[in-house]
């Protein structure tokens, strides 16, 4: 199964996927932005400030999902010693850091008009800040440690330790009395968000996921070329 992520097998597919995403990305972006900024209604309490949700919520989801993916792949990499997984986790990390930071910044911009403050040491916000620190440590481990095997081990360990923070972020609004509102979207079907707002949210999520896929593929391709370039002398 792990042979499927073998660079020689997927190198050609990476180029094709990059071209495919590029061809549909801008059309989907325009549709998503039209729904988010024009067609979706203002909230009855928060007014038009609710539109910040269309960038804030997908960013937070992507930040969380990226770290979960990194941690799970790190565990698999630890057990099965698959080096290609380290290339993938290394490629995901900057994307996850970007979206975690965006979730914090856009959350702050949403907090000012709704809560009357840019920042609060609230459980959800603080645990997101901790997540961004884990991302930074993960990236620094790859940048600062010269020995690649050691860098991978340290980075994987950071990711596995950081995994503890994921349920804390997810359930912080239920476990503690926080300024941050509880989840409006639940997988069990008891979501409290109106479909007129859910549609733009899902469209923006789709667009940002496509963007993530594009960056991941480009970064993964760069990593493969970097390694092959190094190996050329050995052949």
């Amino acid at each position, binding site marked *: 199964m792990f042979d499927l992520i073998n*660079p*020689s097998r997927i*190198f*050609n597919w990476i*180029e094709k996927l990059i071209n495919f995403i590029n061809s549909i990305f801008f059309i989907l972006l325009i549709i998503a*932005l039209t729904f988010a*900024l*024009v067609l979706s209604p*203002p909230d009855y309490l928060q*007014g*038009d*400030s609710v*539109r*910040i949700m269309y*960038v*804030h919520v997908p*960013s937070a989801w992507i930040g969380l999902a990226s770290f979960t993916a990194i941690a799970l792949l790190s565990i698999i990499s630890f057990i099965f010693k698959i080096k290609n997984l380290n290339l993938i986790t290394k490629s995901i990390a*900057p*994307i996850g850091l*970007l979206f975690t*930071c*965006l979730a914090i*910044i*856009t959350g702050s*911009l*949403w907090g*000012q*008009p709704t809560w009357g403050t840019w920042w609060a040491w609230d459980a959800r916000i603080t645990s997101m800040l901790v997540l961004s620190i884990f991302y930074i440590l993960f990236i620094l481990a790859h940048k600062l440690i010269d020995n690649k095997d050691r860098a991978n081990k340290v980075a994987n360990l950071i990711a596995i330790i950081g995994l503890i923070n994921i349920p804390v972020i997810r359930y912080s609004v239920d476990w503690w009395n926080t300024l941050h509102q509880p989840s409006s979207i639940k997988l069990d079907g008891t979501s409290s968000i109106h479909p007129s707002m859910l549609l733009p949210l899902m469209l923006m999520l789709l667009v*940002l996921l496509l*963007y993530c896929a*594009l*960056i991941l593929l*480009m*970064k993964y*391709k*760069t990593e*493969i*070329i*970097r390694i*092959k*370039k190094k*190996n*050329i002398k050995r*052949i």
Partner: protein
Amino acid sequence: MIQNFISMNGYGFFVWLSFAITFLACGMLYYKTYKTLKKYEKDFAKELDQLSEAERKLVLEKSKVASQFLASYNKSI
């Protein structure tokens, strides 16, 4: 109507700034990633080009990625 759209009933600063920061940051990461990829592609192609005919044949035979890369790179330039 356009003024209403821009002001977002008083929330324009927060809404537009959120979207602007998001797309600017995404654009910057895309640009940096793209530039790095192109740099590595160019360097790799140059290195393959500098090999002797026999060496290049050996590399292309042994490395599937190198042969796939060279085919797609030659197509793109």
